[in-house]
């Protein structure tokens, strides 16, 4: 079973990298970009067979390591 974790900065936390990407897109002539937020995608290959249990375990992994919940939020997808 595979799981995909998306980690993003929380709303309201300034993302300097996203701002730089937005600026670079503007330089390339893409004038319609009002905002850019950059995050991470983490794919996990799990031995679990029960989707609900796997999701619960991945959420604990996010809380303990994969995300820093002081500044980041996460979503878990079981694929």
């Amino acid at each position, binding site marked *: 079973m595979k799981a995909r974790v998306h980690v993003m900065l929380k709303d309201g*936390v*300034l993302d*300097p*990298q996203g701002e*730089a990407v937005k600026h670079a897109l503007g330089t390339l002539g893409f004038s319609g970009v009002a905002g850019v937020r950059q995050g991470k995608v983490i794919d996990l290959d799990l031995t679990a067979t029960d989707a609900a249990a796997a999701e619960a375990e991945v959420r604990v992994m996010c809380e*303990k*390591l*994969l995300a*820093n919940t*002081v*500044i980041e939020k996460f979503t878990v997808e079981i694929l």
Partner: protein
Amino acid sequence: MKAAVITFPGSNCDRDLAVAFEAAGAEVVRVWHKDTDLPAGVDVVGVPGGFSFGDYLRCGAIAARSPIAGAMIRHAERGGYVLGICNGFQVLTETGLLPGALMRNAGLKFICRPVELSVATADSAFTAGWAVGDVVRFPIAHHDGNYTADPDTLARLRAEDRVAFTYLENPNGSMADIAGVLSDNRRVLGLMPHPERAVDPAQGGTDGMGMFRSLLGAMALV
């Protein structure tokens, strides 16, 4: 005073930190990230600068979950002293021993130069040798030193006098110009600038020695 200096894979200020502790008169033991316990009788744990575990995932994130970090957390919970510098500060926020987080510098550049800091509190073993408002000059060398915390945390840090140092000229976008913060028991300090790189005239200044001497002075009174 007995200081334990941790080495993670990718630490590069561990020796400098050990030399600074020794120059102030401390006995230093070096500990490895896989160690599960600190040697007996350690008063202060030094968490050095560098790029522990290659800054993978987030700066300090992997180091904060290493076996020695567990021993360091137990030491702090017993009321032991911990000093985290640069990557060490990032490790301490990742463990939760210190509030907030260190994000990418606002200017996105790695900054490596001496900066002037204002001592924001003298109420800690680390800063007792100075007066509030004293200006010290330590080098900074970081890419992710942009201190960030939610408004409630910032208000609490201020109300409890737990901001240890502020930048005179903010180099990295840190909220409220914060360069270093203390734990609620005032025995854990994390800061981005490097006092251990300012302990010998050959390094261009000796302001950092004030912190190590102050810490030793506080230990002598225990």
